[in-house]
């Protein structure tokens, strides 16, 4: 899996995808931090994450759209699937490398709480909680995005499908307050992938929400392995 991780990491940077992602991530997160904290003269890091988590969801397809679709288009999946490695390690290698590329700019944004700290705002629990929530959200979105990339051999189709699905998941969060039917409301709340971060934003480790994100991540990693195996059989 180490070789697959290294190859995927290198691939994300030799194809410029990684650089584009990092540039957009830092530009947008910087803009959100400036607007929500600096210009608003607010020391509350929660206001930054409440906006940026939604923005981040729209950045993940950049990383995931070519993950498996390009392998199929270039026929390099034949190299991976005839190698003496398990399908699980193929899927995990790609997932972990993509997550690592996401963590790179996220670590740079640790300077934002440092700036707030310099201004005398000390909210360690909320800061850690928000970052933990963002990492869990990223894991779930990357696993889902990679699964959607597996279903096509076109990077463009993969990107559009992922944006459509992520868009619906974000809309589900907005629609919760618009419906009054309890069951539908519960379903929308469950689907609203970003709102599950809210518990973490107060600096509280919400085990239920952590399990939600980890379950989504594991489910889509498992589905990716399953689809690869089904493709071998059918």
């Amino acid at each position, binding site marked *: 899996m180490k*070789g697959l991780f290294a190859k995927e990491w290198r691939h994300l940077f030799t194809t410029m995808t990684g650089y584009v992602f990092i540039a957009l991530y830092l530009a947008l997160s910087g803009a959100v931090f400036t607007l929500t904290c600096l210009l608003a003269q607010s020391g509350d890091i929660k206001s930054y994450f409440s906006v940026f988590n939604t923005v981040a969801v729209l950045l993940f397809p950049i990383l995931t759209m070519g993950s498996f679709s390009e392998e199929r288009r270039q026929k390099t999946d034949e190299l991976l699937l005839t190698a003496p490695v398990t399908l699980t390690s193929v899927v995990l290698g790609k997932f972990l490398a993509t997550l690592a590329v996401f963590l790179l700019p996220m670590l740079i944004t640790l300077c934002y709480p440092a700036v707030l700290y310099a201004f005398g705002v000390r909210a360690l629990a909320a800061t850690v909680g928000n970052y933990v929530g963002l990492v869990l959200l990223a894991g779930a979105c990357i696993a889902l995005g990679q699964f959607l990339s597996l279903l096509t051999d076109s990077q463009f189709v993969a990107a559009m499908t992922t944006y459509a699905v992520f868009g619906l998941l974000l809309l589900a969060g907005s629609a919760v307050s618009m419906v009054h039917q309890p069951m539908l409301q519960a379903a929308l709340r469950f689907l609203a992938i970003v709102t599950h971060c809210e518990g973490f934003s107060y600096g509280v480790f919400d085990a239920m929400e952590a399990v939600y994100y980890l379950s989504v991540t594991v489910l889509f990693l498992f589905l990716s392995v399953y689809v690869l195996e089904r493709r071998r059989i059918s």
Partner: protein
Amino acid sequence: MLQVTHLRKDYPTQRSVDDLTFAAESHEAVGLLGPNGAGKSTTMRMLAGYLAPTAGEVELCGLRMSDSPREVKRMIGYLPEIPPLYPESTVTEHLRFVCALRGVAARETARECERVCALLNITHVAGRVIGRLSKGYRQRVGFAAALIGQPRLLILDEPTVGLDPQQVVEIRRLILTLAQQMTVLISSHMLSEIASVCSHLLILNRGVLVADGTAQSIAQGHRDRSLLTATVRGDRSLAVQTLRKAVAGLGELSVQERFTPDETDFLIASAAQVDVSAAVFHAVADRRDALTLTALTAKTPTLEDIFMDITRGAAPVPAQAQEGGRAQA
């Protein structure tokens, strides 16, 4: 060394490979022949572990693919028809990645890359980006990647497609050298290529193995067939119609491709004891107002003729139709 038993692959609409059984010894070059759509690539993909068979078993050095896929895959080097290469990587980066995939120890990686680069004569392009290499070099890089880890079985799917004649000769020489160290399975629909490097031939037609043996043994099995070539001048469709009527019940007629406007070549296969030449001569003579027989020659079947004879036929049979046929039988 390699034992394939009752291998079958069904797709939703058709059966691609049907009850394929053969064995290959170590240190031999085996040629897998067949027309397009015969099931060669599907067979190779199953042997390489890319596709799972619907039924049957692949066994290499006593290990079954279904029981120990990783161990079996470690012993196989596979070069598909389109070499699986990352165009943005350099040759060295790609080969290093394949070393990591195939479990070559980190300290051995550099030496292994140098070894396969030297074998394929690509050392001078090792630092170049694959996407900027010519098709011939890309093919060689794919070949080099298939040799990493010193496989016991090397599977090459149409390895010389798109190469210039000099590269074809080089690759053939390399295959002959490699066949002294490992089992090499090559697929092609080019008889000359297979005949020049392989001692053992397998001929597939519509997913079914129709011949298995050396070129001599396969030819021996077809001595009971006689071949006649006829060239007829005149309207092509009339000529086809006339000869078809003449050989009906005596043999099988096939039209040979030759791009001349007024002449058509025919190949007529029949049982050795049946003489169809008189029937052909009289049939054309009866239509001498429109047709002229310009040549009528008895032919000793070559490997190519046997191949044509064996693989003459149309599209693959749908899986359900085959099942139904068997059920009725």
